């Protein structure tokens, strides 16, 4: 049965090098939590600590009402899907899925029922007698998931399970995992460096960098109200454009970039800013690629003239790198806008969701209504 998971003040150091620093978060029963961050940020270490494959230097781990910090992996009642599948190559698909049940001395009838049930769910029925070597990458990953779900563990752990699959397969596997979560109502901790996976799968995202939690919350909460520059640039695709500058008082609060780009902060968003966002403050302005639109669609009076540098047609939209007042920014224009290199674009900033950060602390200067 699914159980809750509590990570309480967990730190981890290898030979004095601290890789996790005071990590605390809770995963509610049946919740899908995604740990996301760049390579080396410590997200897999958190997962391995939950699995019992690594020991904490400080802190504790609770699964349901049990304190499991010192437990061996086998005693934690967790299941894990590894990045490289980790299937037993000398065993058939059936035996791979049944392995954990055999160790736990389930009856043969129960094992068969559970394996067949998992194979049915994961569309593996016709591969049960094959060895892993005879399967494709997607099928192997499904076997690995099957091995996890037959055990009906308290917590499922996924360690970048889709990173070895091609883009198309990744999409379909993502959907399978989402459906499986709905069906099983399982507690899942999922590690990825792919923010699209994080946004699409998670009930809650935990963003990690350098072993420290940067922010956690619902996917759209992180998208609209990033706590700092790191989260702002990490969540969202393409990454948020960042323009360094300062605030000034020129008949209202005005942003002046380091390269002279200047505009008034719209009155509609002024009330969203924290009191620290005052004239003289060095700031970083964030503009999402999708918030710079053709002038006709704009809702504010902030207009930019941009010169197209590079275009990347993507089909449904075109990604355009352009220069605005000396700053290179990336924007996304929906079809049928297809500018050519050298074109002048008249853009309007859709500034309902302003992103403004303190240049020194990198913390957001925008109020988060949820916090």
């Amino acid at each position, binding site marked *: 049965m699914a159980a809750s998971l509590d990570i309480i003040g967990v730190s981890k150091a290898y030979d004095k090098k601290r890789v996790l620093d005071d990590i605390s978060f809770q995963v509610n029963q049946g919740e899908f939590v995604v740990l996301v961050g760049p390579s080396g940020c410590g997200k897999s270490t958190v997962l391995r600590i939950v*699995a*019992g*494959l690594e020991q904490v230097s400080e802190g504790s781990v609770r699964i349901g009402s049990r304190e499991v910090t010192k437990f*061996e*992996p*086998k005693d934690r009642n*967790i*299941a*894990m899907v*590894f*990045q*490289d*599948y*980790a*299937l*037993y*190559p*000398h065993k058939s698909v059936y035996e791979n899925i049944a*392995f*954990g049940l055999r*160790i*736990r001395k389930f009856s043969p009838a129960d094992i068969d029922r559970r394996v067949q049930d998992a194979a049915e769910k994961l569309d593996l029925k016709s591969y049960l007698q094959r*060895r*892993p*070597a*005879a*399967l494709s*990458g997607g099928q*192997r990953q499904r076997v690995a998931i099957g*091995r996890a779900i037959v*055990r009906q563990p308290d917590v499922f752990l996924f360690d970048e399970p889709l990173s*070895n699959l091609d883009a198309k397969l990744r999409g379909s596997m993502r959907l399978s995992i989402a459906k499986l979560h709905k069906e099983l109502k399982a507690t899942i901790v999922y590690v990825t460096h792919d923010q699209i996976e994080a946004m699409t799968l998670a009930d809650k995202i935990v963003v990690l960098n350098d072993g420290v939690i940067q922010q956690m919350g619902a996917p759209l909460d992180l998208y609209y109200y990033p706590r700092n520059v790191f989260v702002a640039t990490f969540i969202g695709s393409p990454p948020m454009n960042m323009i360094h500058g300062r605030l000034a008082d020129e008949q209202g609060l005005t942003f002046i970039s380091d390269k002279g780009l200047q505009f008034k902060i719209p009155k509609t968003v002024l009330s969203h800013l924290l009191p620290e966002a005052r004239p003289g403050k060095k700031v970083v302005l964030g503009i999402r690629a999708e918030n710079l639109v053709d002038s006709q669609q704009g809702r504010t009076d902030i207009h930019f003239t941009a010169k197209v540098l590079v275009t990347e047609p993507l089909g449904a939209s075109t990604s355009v790198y352009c220069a605005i007042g000396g700053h290179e920014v990336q924007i996304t224009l929906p079809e049928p806008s297809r500018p050519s290199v050298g074109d002048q674009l008249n853009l309007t900033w859709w500034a309902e969701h302003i992103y403004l950060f303190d240049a020194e602390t990198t913390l957001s200067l925008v109020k988060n209504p949820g916090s």
Partner: protein
Amino acid sequence: MRGNLSFTRKTIYHLVLIVAAIFSILPLYRIITVALRPGDKIFTTNFEIFPETPTLENFTAVFSQTQFITWLANSLIVTILTAFISVILSATAGYALSRFRFPMRSGVFMFLMATQMMPAVMLLLPLYFMLRRFGLIDTYAGVIVVYMMTTLPFCIWLLKGYFDTIPRSLEQAAQVDGLTAIGAFWKVVLPLSTPSLAIAMLFCVTQIWNEYIVARVILQTAELYTWPLGLFELQGDFDTRWGMFAAASVTVTVPVTAAFLYSSKWLLTGLTVGGVKG
């Protein structure tokens, strides 16, 4: 032109291989034919591919007139025990060196490798005194200990190298599935290592089965002789019984050949293929 060159090259390769094959097979052929000749035709110089009147009398003689069965049994005991103990110890040691980080780990490994450079014969004198102190002279245990000194470092090196190629995630998956760390080694790592375990076992068998010098120094009672020592007994000062000698030589190749044939099915490579993302 290119085809001709290739044909010439092929011909040369095949000639070299045929000559090498003849050099390898000729002694074997000679010893088999000598073993099958009647006693009065041992030294015949007639050119004959196969003896005109082949007989098994040398085989029956070596089994009935000497302690050959005892020597064979002794060799089997020493070889099997040494091979099994070596493989068990080197599998655990190789696994520890492959998986665990501990102080002096690389030092230990280098030391083991360095011992490979020293032939056991060089250490025979100090070993003899040590074995005598422990009362192991003229015992199976004595020869087994010395043999293991030569087999262990190589087997540890071999198995450590193989364990290095097995992804750790397999053991970790097994631990999450419900095994202890030792259980994962036993039920996942060892079954995947059968090719290298078979090679290690074969290495031990071929090293020990024919060994003479160490056995000569340590074993002194005829009842404990291994077959190489026993065979030497057939050589007299004035008369060597070549027929029996040859028959015994042919006989002793049987167990080691059987061991090789049996283990060849385990020598399949690529057992770990497909388990993890390559």
